[in-house]
């Protein structure tokens, strides 16, 4: 039996990268999602969209090459690559809300078993950055959450009902964590499809705040 391990942030990003099909239009959120693009296999061409008003984002700019007029939604500097297109924010969000993003990958504070997403407000702070997350969550054809399975205190981030304020209801279709890959099945709940090396479904269930259905073809996560 292999040693029990949790995926690291790059491991989560690698697993998510396999979900991006050739030619897809993709928006990557801040945090772990940002790491995803570097793990997309060579030769697969993806059109990355950013709320900063750009389609066709390439890799990050090299140090010394930063251009203040070429940033992503996280404020990182982008390299200028052939085939990009710039647009203003009303157009950037028309793309999102209008259903033109095939896949968005977002971080989360909590996800419920129905696919409710909470990722913008710590109630104790009393104020938060709603940003473009709500538009992405309601607009993208497929919402994938990439996050740690539990929070810093070890509490489950996958729950029956979110206690953090919602970003959108019933929007998440896949959750990729450091322990598991879970599908949100409409009207049924969470389906455990893949599991980190060395873990048992019971162990993952113990760290999950909602009941898991086990896929008949449950597999180990491959990166």
């Amino acid at each position: 039996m292999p040693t029990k391990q949790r995926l690291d942030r790059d491991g989560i990003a690698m697993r998510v990268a396999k979900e991006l099909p050739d030619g897809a239009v993709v928006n990557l959120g801040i945090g772990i999602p940002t790491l995803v693009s570097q793990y997309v296999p060579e030769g697969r061409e993806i059109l990355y969209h950013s709320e900063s008003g750009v389609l066709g984002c390439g890799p990050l700019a090299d140090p010394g090459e930063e251009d203040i007029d070429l940033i992503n939604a996280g404020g990182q500097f982008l390299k200028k690559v052939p085939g990009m297109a710039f647009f203003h924010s009303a157009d950037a969000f028309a793309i999102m809300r209008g259903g033109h993003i095939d896949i968005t990958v977002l971080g989360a504070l909590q996800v419920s078993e129905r696919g409710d997403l909470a990722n913008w407000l710590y109630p104790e702070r009393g104020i938060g950055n709603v940003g473009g997350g709500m538009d992405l969550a309601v607009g993208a054809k497929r919402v994938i959450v990439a996050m740690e399975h539990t929070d810093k205190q070890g509490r489950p981030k996958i729950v029956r009902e979110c206690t953090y304020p919602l970003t959108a209801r019933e929007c998440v279709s896949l959750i990729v964590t450091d322990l598991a890959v879970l599908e949100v099945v409409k009207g049924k709940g969470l389906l455990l499809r893949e599991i980190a090396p060395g873990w048992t479904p019971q162990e993952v269930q113990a760290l999950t705040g909602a009941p898991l259905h086990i896929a008949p073809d449950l597999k180990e996560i491959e990166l």
Partner: protein
Amino acid sequence: MPINKVVPSFREAVADIPDGATIFLDGFGGPGGMPHFLILALWEHGAKNLTIISNTAGIAMAAGFGMPGGKRYIDHSILIESGQVRKVIASFPVTANPSVLCAAERAWREGKLEIETVPQGTLVERIRAGGAGIPAFYTPTGVGTLLERGKEKRVFNGREYLLETALTADFAFIRAWKADRLGNLVYRGTSRNFNAVMATAARITIAEVDEVVEPGGIDPDHVHTPALYVKRIVVRPPDDTPILAETYEARKRERGRV
């Protein structure tokens, strides 16, 4: 695999259009923004029971709108003449001169075509809304006119507005100047008009272009339609004979189609 949306022929570009489809089609009026070759391919394809959403119902062929001396190009009139169209939603359904009948007015008089007349700004804003995920919006245009019939009226800040709903389509026929293989488009001058908006609101947007350039051949600050909106690109041949009105008349006779 590198993205390459270029389709080898107009025939292939329209091959999957089913009977009953709704199609956006530019043509502010004149030939500049008109996807002539796609229209001709659809005529040859023969799909029926179509709904066409366009600024005009096809008036250039009858009235010569925006056409320089001599040349006459086809427009969506040919789809109406051939009986492929069930309904047109347009802002300019007829010619300016009541004694010059376009195909749409003729078919409408004969009860063979339904026409819905929509103010131009409302028409294009409804299409923009369709592309932007806005199901409905309020507009002052049309209040107190025949065109307010059946529409919800509501007061904001003491002024009356009408509720208008989004328009989407199964296909958009777009006429652009340049494309790259990813689908980024640029238009020339006033031919951008409805094209750039319709490109955002159809399930499948097909662009008829003069030229395909390499990615990077269009400055990213100059792109009018970002690649994600475009599914297929077809290049117009340098020879415009197939889309001349005379060629169409000859072909029509040849095939016995009216």
